């Protein structure tokens, strides 16, 4: 009784309560991210080992939805789909069992478009290209602009002469060359207490779960939804809705085409030293493709500008394979919309299975020509 009385005193109760919550926080950090990630990327992304973009040997499935629906806290706009995500022993995404025995032919690299957001392993760009070509296209997506990693992968695959297909999102500015080509530095073992504390307390699985609960009532009915301003909800010509990132003026290709040309010229030359050819694929972001098809959303930067043409022509004139998917995807998107089909996920920034399939076909046309040319040399 006396013990209970003491326990009920605030000077004892509050510290115990805080301790219990802290213990729950610590315990939650032992739970695999798969349990609370809304898609594969956050669950398997490897932030500790700089040599591997994802955790090694992962084989998991998710009921995933798009990053824009998550960003804007718009559950009504979620388009759930099954995502099966596997990684190999080196921490890169695999292309499924069907292409496992193919001889090595190319390395695909780039950002999340190359990795394949919320599509299954056999639906990624690398898997599609493998099926079309009969050669293994290794999915090295997730390691951007990393010549060292590409060289390492080429040696692992024993790829003496091959192609590096680089998926380049046109919203990304590349740095002024040259870049250092070096092995990734291991994480510093030096413990900085302040940084450690900030990082430790900035994220915890408990905070993810509680944040999700809190966001359920941030629905613009009970509480305002502060995340709503992070996305634009637009109506397409067929009446369906689609989410976009808010308009931005960011088009490095239009602003700095010469810097981009210099960079890819240098990149191609470095690859050439290892016997690899570059095939640069310009991928448009969603606003570029669906902006013209939206009724109530007019992004500022839609306009296949002179910068795109300049980069493609300049690289081609120097013998570097370059493909701009923007006009192709725009045309296909408009045609598909008339049939009620879309090429990008409605609730995500990325292309969907159909968009990837079409992109793979276009890339293969260019790559196939290069393969034939190489054979005849």
């Amino acid at each position, binding site marked *: 009784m006396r013990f209970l009385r003491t326990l009920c*005193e*605030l000077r004892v109760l509050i510290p115990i309560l805080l301790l219990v919550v*802290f213990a729950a926080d610590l315990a939650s950090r032992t739970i695999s991210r798969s349990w609370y990630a809304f898609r594969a990327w956050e669950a398997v992304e490897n932030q500790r080992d700089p040599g591997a973009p994802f955790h090694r040997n992962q084989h998991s499935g998710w009921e995933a939805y798009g990053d824009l629906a998550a960003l804007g806290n718009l559950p009504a706009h979620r388009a759930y789909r099954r995502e099966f995500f596997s990684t190999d022993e080196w921490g890169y995404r695999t292309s499924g069992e069907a292409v496992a025995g193919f001889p090595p032919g190319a390395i695909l690299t780039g950002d999340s478009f190359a990795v394949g957001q919320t599509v299954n392993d056999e639906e990624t760009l690398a898997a599609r290209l493998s099926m079309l070509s009969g050669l293994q296209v290794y999915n090295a997506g997730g390691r951007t602009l990393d010549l060292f990693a590409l060289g390492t992968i080429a040696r692992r695959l024993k790829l003496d002469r091959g192609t590096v297909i680089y998926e380049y999102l046109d919203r990304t500015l590349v740095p002024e060359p040259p870049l250092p080509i070096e092995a990734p530095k291991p994480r510093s073992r030096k413990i900085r207490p302040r940084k450690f504390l900030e990082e430790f307390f900035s994220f*915890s699985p408990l*905070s993810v779960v509680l944040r999700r*609960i*809190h966001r359920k009532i941030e629905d613009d009915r*009970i509480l*305002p939804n502060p995340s709503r301003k992070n996305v634009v909800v637009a109506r397409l010509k067929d009446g369906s809705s689609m989410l976009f990132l808010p308009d931005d003026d960011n088009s490095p290709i239009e602003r700095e085409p010469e810097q981009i040309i210099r960079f890819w010229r240098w990149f191609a030359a470095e690859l050439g030293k290892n016997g690899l050819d570059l095939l640069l694929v310009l991928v448009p972001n969603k606003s570029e493709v669906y902006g013209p098809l939206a009724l109530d959303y007019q992004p500022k930067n839609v306009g296949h500008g002179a910068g795109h043409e300049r980069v493609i022509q300049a690289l081609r004139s120097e013998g570097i394979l370059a493909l701009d998917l923007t006009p192709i995807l725009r045309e296909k998107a408009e045609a598909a919309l008339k049939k009620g089909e879309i090429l990008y996920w409605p609730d995500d920034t990325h292309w969907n299975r159909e968009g990837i399939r079409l992109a793979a076909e276009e890339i293969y046309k260019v790559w196939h020509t290069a393969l034939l040319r190489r054979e005849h040399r």
Partner: protein
Amino acid sequence: MLFNSLVFLYAFLPLAYWIFRFLRGRTARYIWMTAAGYLFYSFWNPKFCLLMAFSTLVSYLAGLGFLATDHPVKRRFLLVIPVGIDLALLAFFKYADFALGTFNEMATWMHLTTRLRLMEVVLPVGISFYTFHTITYIVDSYRRTITPTRNFFEFSCYVSLFTQLVAGPIVRFREVKDDLERIESAEKRADGNGGWSLFCIGMAKKVLLADTIAAFINPALMEYKHLGTVESWVCMLGYSYQLYFDFSGYSDMAMGLGRLFGIRIPQNFNSPYKAADVRDFWRRWHISLSTCLRDYLYIPLGGRGTAWSTGRNIMITMLLGGVWHGANWTFVVWGAYHGLLLVLHRSMARPWEKLPLGVRRASTFLLVLIGWVFFRSTSFEMAFALLGAMFSWTPFQGMTCFSTLVVLLVLATVVVQGSPNTCEMKHDWRPVLRIGIAMLLLASVFVMYSGQETAFLYFQF
């Protein structure tokens, strides 16, 4: 680091407290509390610890000087130079860019081509508070209201005490001197139950009330040009409560933390929205600042004298009080507005007091709310747009979750007008209510976990 942050609750506070309890000697505790204060402050920017250390050293040396001499000229020198240094630091970090920006605006207005480049000075968090701590120490030492301390660590402990370091209350040395001098027996004066009670209630006021109200009104106030009359009034009512819960919540937490360490931090809010007139309001709102302004500005200016001199002294005091709040002309206008109200109250006190209490309270609250328009506005354009919407009918334009906000404000009104403030509470709760207090903290912690950590409004001052 904020009080409403996980790193404070889980790491800093337990460490500060248990090491304090472990250390027994007075000097050891002074040193530890000083170190804890600097560690707390360094989470914002370690470099600015040097600034605080400099201000501390200058003031400490001034105190020693006062102990060493009775010569009036030397004492005046010891008063003017350190206070001047503190005010110069405050002026530079807080008002340099404001002055330059004002010059540039005036140059534009007068069609001059001269422009001065802004220095983009970073405002050190809490500088308005710790410089006031050192200034009050120097002035009180000069006036012989206190005996300056020879113990550097005692003084540095006072200046850097983390409980009130960055957002007040402005605690004068004489108010905590006894507790500091008996710090080795702090356990005898420590009040864990009362301290945690204050802390939890303060946390709930900040996290559950102030921040929730802010979530409704801030997006609306960003679109101030499109607010109708009803929304403008509701937003300003919301802001009145947000500011009160935010600031008084912080003060409650500061008092609660002080109690855990056996240091009695004085009350800073006394139900200001129950004030019956403007003068009463300033006896209840930010008491530590208003008493500082009274003791170190209003009274030295001459205080109450003729109608003209009293009015002048009030206006100067309130104008500078407004300036203290921030480097923006809207704060100056806010200060002038309250100065004017105080001057008018002096001449209308008798007829005012004949009004029913309810009418006086409601009218005072209305006048204060109107003043908050300038306090909240980032520009005169915003202030006049809000006042225009409030006082000339504009139809209801709509506002997200309007009905929820109204319910919340009704609840806030009941809390503010109908319940005792935290200093009127005994904090000796029955077990059921203790569970309730604990649940308030739990709810606050859960909101903090959900990523809603927000700074206290008075940090910007």
